[in-house]
């Protein structure tokens, strides 16, 4: 990317955690601000630089008719569009609504629902526009964010592996909590990137980075059942932060179907 690329950071339905990760790069923040022009980042500045932008980081999922239009405008203004976080990559936890039927929703209607505009589904950015890269995680990893930024600056393809959490878990020298503790761990079907934080804290991965490439949820589910994990728990585990991600959704459906 020649010159100082202009970066914009956008928000859709989300918790702000992924964009906060930018401000959490304490050691690198000033260097980032030197290497790129942070042209649009409302969470951090009153200056709203107009497009076009070289890089857009997009947080959050699409949940309103207005947002469904806004994302197209952002795509037009952006050379490279990067979806950041589980919300942007798969619809996030708010995609839990997708599974509720509308009647059920109507039954819990709030006082004056007519004031609120919302879509029936929470969907990933890639369901609406072309996405150039995707950073997974709820929230994204600081290291991966920096890896993408430095890669784009240097003109290389970011090294964001799509393999399982297990690789990172073992590279970190952790003891497998599933094998040594009988703890339900979704690491084998979850994409790496977090650094295997949960096993490091003696807990099973709960799949906040979404499905790994070539994962085999059906096989893992069989194993979890053998460990005595109730189907209802397995279902909920698959239907949390990446409920809308296809491999998880399919596996959950399969489990429910039997």
């Amino acid at each position, binding site marked *: 990317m020649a010159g100082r690329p202009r970066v914009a950071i956008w928000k859709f339905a989300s*918790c*702000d955690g992924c964009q906060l990760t930018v401000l959490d790069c304490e050691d690198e923040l000033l260097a980032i601000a030197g290497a790129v022009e942070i042209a649009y980042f409302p969470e951090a500045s009153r200056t709203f630089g107009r497009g076009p932008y070289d890089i857009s980081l997009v947080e959050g999922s699409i949940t309103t008719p207005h947002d469904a239009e806004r994302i197209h405008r952002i795509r037009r203004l952006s050379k490279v569009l990067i979806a950041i976080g589980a919300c942007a990559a798969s619809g996030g936890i708010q995609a839990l609504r997708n599974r509720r039927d509308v009647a059920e929703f109507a039954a819990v209607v709030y006082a004056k629902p007519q004031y*609120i505009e919302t879509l*029936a589904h929470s969907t990933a950015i890639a369901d609406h526009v072309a996405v150039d890269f995707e950073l997974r995680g709820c*929230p994204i990893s*600081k290291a991966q964010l920096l890896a993408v930024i430095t890669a784009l600056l240097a003109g290389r393809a970011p090294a964001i592996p799509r393999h399982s959490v297990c690789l990172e878990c073992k590279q970190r020298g952790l003891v497998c909590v599933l094998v040594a503790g009988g703890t339900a761990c979704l690491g084998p079907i979850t994409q790496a990137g*977090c650094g295997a934080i949960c096993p490091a804290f003696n807990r099973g991965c709960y799949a906040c980075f979404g499905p790994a490439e070539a994962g085999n949820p059906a096989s893992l589910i069989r194993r979890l059942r053998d460990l005595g994990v109730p189907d209802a728990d397995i279902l909920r585990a698959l239907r949390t932060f990446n409920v809308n991600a296809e491999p998880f959704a399919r596996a959950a459906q399969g489990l429910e179907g039997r």
Partner: protein
Amino acid sequence: MGTTRRTIKVDTLARVEGEGALYVRVTDGAVAEVRLKIYEPPRFFEAFLRGRRFTEAPDITARICGICPVAYQMSACQAMESAAGVTVDARIRALRRLLYLAEWIESHTLHIYMLHAPDFLGFPGVVEMAGAHPETVTRALRLKKVGNDLMAAIGGREIHPVNVRVGGFYRAPGRDELAPFAARLREAREIAVETVRWVAGFEFPAIERDYEFVALTHPDEYAILEGRLAGSRGLDIAVREYEQEFTEEQRPYSNALHSRRRSGESYLVGPLARYSLNFDRLTPLAQDAARRAGLGPVCRNPFRSIIVRAVELTHACDEALTLVQGYAPPDPPAVDVPARAGTGWGCTEAPRGILYHRYHLDAAGTILAAKIVPPTSQNQATIEDDLRDVVGASLDLPDDRLTWRCEQTVRNYDPCISCATHFLTVRVDRERPA
């Protein structure tokens, strides 16, 4: 001359967590309408918490807000423990408090330096401010990093920590993992004291507001994790009585609910309230820093909340240091919390004020109903009241300055809009995106 009409519109409120807009209408020199509009899309957490297991609430509700996930985790854990009639032991409690203080350090530093100070110094944001005040910003980043690193050491990561569970923690960090923080917290404490001095030198509009402060209060400590709910007009209730005293209402222009006293008044939660109600339970160092900054034991100027935040920051570093020095890993790291039918309440002091959770559980531990009231919805009415006063007192300012002043008024609250919009349950449009 006929009617003069002046409107202040801020379509995208900057340096707040989430998406909000501001609308003020002044007719004939008087403030006619003030709207803090929160258009952050609602995310329906209360709806989809129903049917989940009680053990899932800390992880799920954390996702309401990436700025204060620990607050959500703590309120959720305590609510579930209260439903089960379980209390955690002192070591778990101490580690929770340490984690919470780490979040305070991170969040307060973020707000003071990155979101709020630029208003006082006339910069659009922290990056621009770093150009003129590089050492200040570097210092802030160091301080913020201590909070973040401590959160990561205890919780696994800074945002949405993974180590918190109902009953305690999945794994207690070893002494050796936390010991290195002593030196860093000592430095952080110095930076915090320096921060109080620095922000005390800003210029503040002379505004005093007659708030009703509401905060947790605890006999032995600056209340964060637990306590009774106290108010500056005599409120003194247990957490479980919250809904008898407070209520929420919906406004047509906003995706966030407004909380009020049942009597209809607005009230204020957050640093000013905590400080004014609990001043004498700040550590001596923090009290001293406050006095030196010219603060009395009560502060009613919303713009001075930045000083109060810095005082709380000092307290947080100071107390975190004590906790790190006295740290003994809880063993086991969590107490057993059985599933039990009933209702649980939890309320803790998020950096922005009290965060209330209530859950109904069935005998299997399934959540039947959930209610979550974050600080920003509680302050929303007060923010609008503040705006009315501030605009009224600043009508001589030109539009651009007045706009900025209005924004600053909102930012006094460090409003977390992501929090404020988590819970509406609403009509659903049947259209589907392509």
